[in-house]
């Protein structure tokens, strides 16, 4: 029995997949604590789709995929800023418009030379067959993100909670915001390898939202979120060995199930508890 459970670890590719997923899952979950509080979930999804043309081009030209991803990520962010400045369109429409267009450009590039790029790997993740070269990029990105976050997480809380207050106590608000979005795009680039472009949004939203239902203190929220993100990611990758299914799909399914459990059963903010409180209040 134990032999069977440990079996995945005897394979090098499985072992790699599990720890890389855990690392990326933790970083994304850290960021999710901030993202879900600000109503910027669409941004996470948009970044993940926008970098597809960059990744496709990078593979086509045999460049590090992270470089291509960063380049198009920045281009997409700039396009959004320009359209926002020039029009009165709602922000969500602008984001949706830009990211789908970038995605379409990515597909066009792939359709010109379909054999050189594995589009399925970009959209759905490719963690079980990831190359050491790509792992190196993911690890570097993740550690830089973690390092910056651990140094600056309190400043980011201040900025996200009350921008004016943060400014008044002398924090460089704009610099911190730009830092956050840079970290977010970096984490997106890393997560692309584990769950693929379509599911990155779950990685940068779900763990934070789950933790938000479980605690009121931001420090704890981050801890719970990171633990959840890491564990679900590792477990999803691990389970893919036995279930023979797409690891990204498993990771996100797991995260969603845990969110639903928290939604119904959380001690203070769960649906059952709230219903009980209302019933008591109305009955009294």
């Amino acid at each position, binding site marked *: 029995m134990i032999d069977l459970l440990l079996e995945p670890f005897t394979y090098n590719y499985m072992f790699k997949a599990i720890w890389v997923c855990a690392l990326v899952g933790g970083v994304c979950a850290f960021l999710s604590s901030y993202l879900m509080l600000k109503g910027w979930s669409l941004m996470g999804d948009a970044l993940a789709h926008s970098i597809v043309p960059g990744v496709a081009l990078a593979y086509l030209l045999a460049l590090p995929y992270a470089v291509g991803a960063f380049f198009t990520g920045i281009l997409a962010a700039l396009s959004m800023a320009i359209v926002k400045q020039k029009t009165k369109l709602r922000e969500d429409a602008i984001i949706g418009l830009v990211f789908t267009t970038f995605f379409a450009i990515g597909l066009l590039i792939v359709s010109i030379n379909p054999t050189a790029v594995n589009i399925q790997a970009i959209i*759905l993740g490719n963690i079980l067959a990831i190359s050491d070269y790509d792992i190196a990029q993911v690890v570097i990105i993740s550690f830089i993100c973690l390092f910056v976050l651990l140094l600056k997480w309190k400043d980011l809380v201040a900025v996200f909670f009350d921008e004016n207050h943060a400014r008044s106590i002398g924090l460089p608000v704009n610099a911190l915001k730009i830092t956050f979005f840079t970290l977010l795009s970096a984490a997106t680039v890393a997560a692309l390898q584990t769950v693929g472009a379509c*599911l990155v949004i779950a990685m940068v939203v779900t763990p934070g939202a789950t933790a938000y239902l479980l605690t009121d203190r931001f420090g704890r929220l981050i801890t719970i979120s990171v633990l959840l993100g890491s564990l679900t990611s590792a477990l999803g990758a691990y389970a893919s060995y036995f279930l023979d299914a797409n690891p990204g799909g498993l990771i996100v399914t797991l995260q969603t199930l845990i969110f639903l459990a928290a939604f119904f059963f959380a001690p203070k903010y769960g649906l059952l508890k709230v219903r009980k409180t209302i019933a008591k209040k109305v009955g009294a």
Partner: protein
Amino acid sequence: MIDTLLALITEPLAHEFMQRALLVSILIGTVCSIFSCFLVLKGWSLMGDAVSHAVLPGLALAFVIGIPLSIGAFIAGLFCALATGYIKDNSRVKEDAVMGIVFSGLFALGLVMLTKIETDVHLLHVLFGNILGISSQDVIEAGTIAILCSLIMLIKRRDFMLYCFDPAHASVIGLRVRFLHFGLLILLALTIVSSLKAAGIILVISMLIAPGATGFMLTKSFDRMLIIAMSVSIFSCITGTLMSFHLDVATAPLIVVIQAALFIMAVFVGRQTQGMKEVSYGT
């Protein structure tokens, strides 16, 4: 010169699959562009994103049960919208986050199901569309849904427009706001389902935003916005389909890129130049 141009158009249409592709692209281009006007004004872009991704498990389930895939997709898409509303109303998590969680969860579930179940659903076709491989059966199915939705939206456009503009007023004058809300959601799910085979679940989002955004830039009246959106969308669909044949590139992405290019042009000639004119009262 004119002969060459004509040949550019007639040559692709000599193939039956190109005729079908052109027809279906015009049909879904129409229905998507009509919906896009409401979507852009209502601020529902993420909703479009969510519902389209969420259809995936519906496809897999429909195959297992043996019902038409469109019905499964429709139910899954609608379920996503309803579940989002329910969780948002009953928890303290923000709506956009709930939407992200629900649709990514459903997409992930669909992905796992499709890798575990032997289906004839081709994942890449669902993701990116396969307009050139579309069958006459598909054309009839997509066309029926598209025409039906287009008619409903055009006939009841004033009610839907009012709902987008000021739901409180809609309620106060006795319109059934919940009915309009769910009607719009159902139409969104149907529109996406009709476009699945041709555009795929990601590019349909663009077709659901770009034409409306272009119309928004060019006019200040809603009816004109509708007309512009439809014209722009149909034009892009025709040129995109024909050009993709000659350039030998993927069709749906090309249509999306053309729509985006037209939007960019609209931005530069658009109505943002009209400044606010302050006029004092009673003088």
